[in-house]
């Protein structure tokens, strides 16, 4: 009887040790992922600052060479997005792959750059860079900076669509579309997407 009780206690302790060790491993893995994202975000921000510093030189070179200005290679910073009311200030990198989105909001390849005529699509993780988008409302101001200049936008439309729905469309006028997974607070793969559409108010070089 005593032996059985002790064996049960021992197995209980073993199970608890396993659970704690496994849980700690999973937690460390999550923390490592967050730390890697923070490092990538800092790297993108310092790269952006370097590019900002050389902006005048780049613009002058583009004028002389007729080249398109900044590089749009995947993972390189292409713009900065600020939503003052939500205290959101992020550097946008080119591409929306998992690696790109780790560093910051991603500019969807093939869409217009903010400030160009057309639909500029920027996406980010709901649990990281675009977490504040859960509080965005129609009429909020968005400011973008890129080699096309500083543009001020106003949120015109908010939509929640199915993850598989055709949500992005071309536009003949300048349009800024921000996307993230929806609902913002949700465990597992989010079933929907939040689409924020903003129209340009003014632009300055």
């Amino acid at each position, binding site marked *: *009887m*005593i032996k*059985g*009780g*002790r064996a*049960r*206690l021992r197995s*209980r*302790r073993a*199970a*608890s*040790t*396993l*659970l*704690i*060790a*496994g*849980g*700690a*491993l*999973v*937690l460390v*893995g*999550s923390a490592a*992922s*967050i730390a890697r994202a923070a490092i990538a975000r800092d790297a993108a921000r310092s790269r952006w600052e370097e590019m900002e510093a050389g902006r005048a030189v780049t613009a002058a070179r583009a004028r002389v060479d007729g080249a398109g200005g900044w590089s749009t290679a995947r993972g390189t910073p292409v713009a900065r997005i600020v939503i003052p009311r939500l205290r959101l200030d992020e550097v946008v990198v080119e*591409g*929306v*792959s998992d690696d790109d*989105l780790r560093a910051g909001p*991603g500019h*969807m*390849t*093939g*869409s217009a750059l903010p400030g160009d005529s057309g*639909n500029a*699509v920027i*996406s*980010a*993780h*709901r*649990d*990281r860079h*675009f977490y504040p988008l859960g509080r965005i409302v129609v009429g909020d101001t968005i400011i973008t900076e890129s080699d096309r200049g500083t543009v001020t936008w106003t949120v015109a439309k908010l939509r929640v*669509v199915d*993850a*598989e*729905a*055709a*949500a*992005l*469309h*071309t536009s003949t006028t300048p349009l800024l579309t921000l*996307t993230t*997974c929806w609902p913002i607070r949700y*465990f*597992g*793969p*989010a079933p929907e*997407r939040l689409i924020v559409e903003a129209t340009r108010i003014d632009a300055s070089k």
Partner: protein
Amino acid sequence: MRTWLGRGTFAAIVVFGAATAEAQITTVIETPKRTTVAAQQAAARREEVAQDSIARITMTGMKEWVDSAAASLAIRPDTGTVPASDTAAATRRSTQPATQRSDSATATSGRSPVKATEFRDGARAPDTGTPVPTLAFLGAVMVLAGALLRRRPTPAAARRSRR
């Protein structure tokens, strides 16, 4: 005694009369053969019907193909006579929308879709989900469960361990 005798006789009939019975049954088995033929006929009929429906599907596909080809030719009114090479090009163009249709069908049917990473008209919003919150929650639950299991043994188990 009589009962035993009767039972023995019955058993002997069952054992030794099996050959005769088998012969009887063999003759009776002929009927299922006829049903097998009927089943084969039914299977053949089913196959015919299936082939018919396949043919119908093919014809529907052909109709769509012809319609789309006609549409792609209709948007080029300046071409009076279409050379053979152009027709081939038109065919290539006309097959493109069909591919897109099948893509959207895949998307709606819920099969694992390809991640949308490049912008095009009608594209899906990129997948911006991460497993980090779920993993963190799972890890926290595991640690908590482990701690609870370690800290609170049942009273009976505690009594037993004290003994």
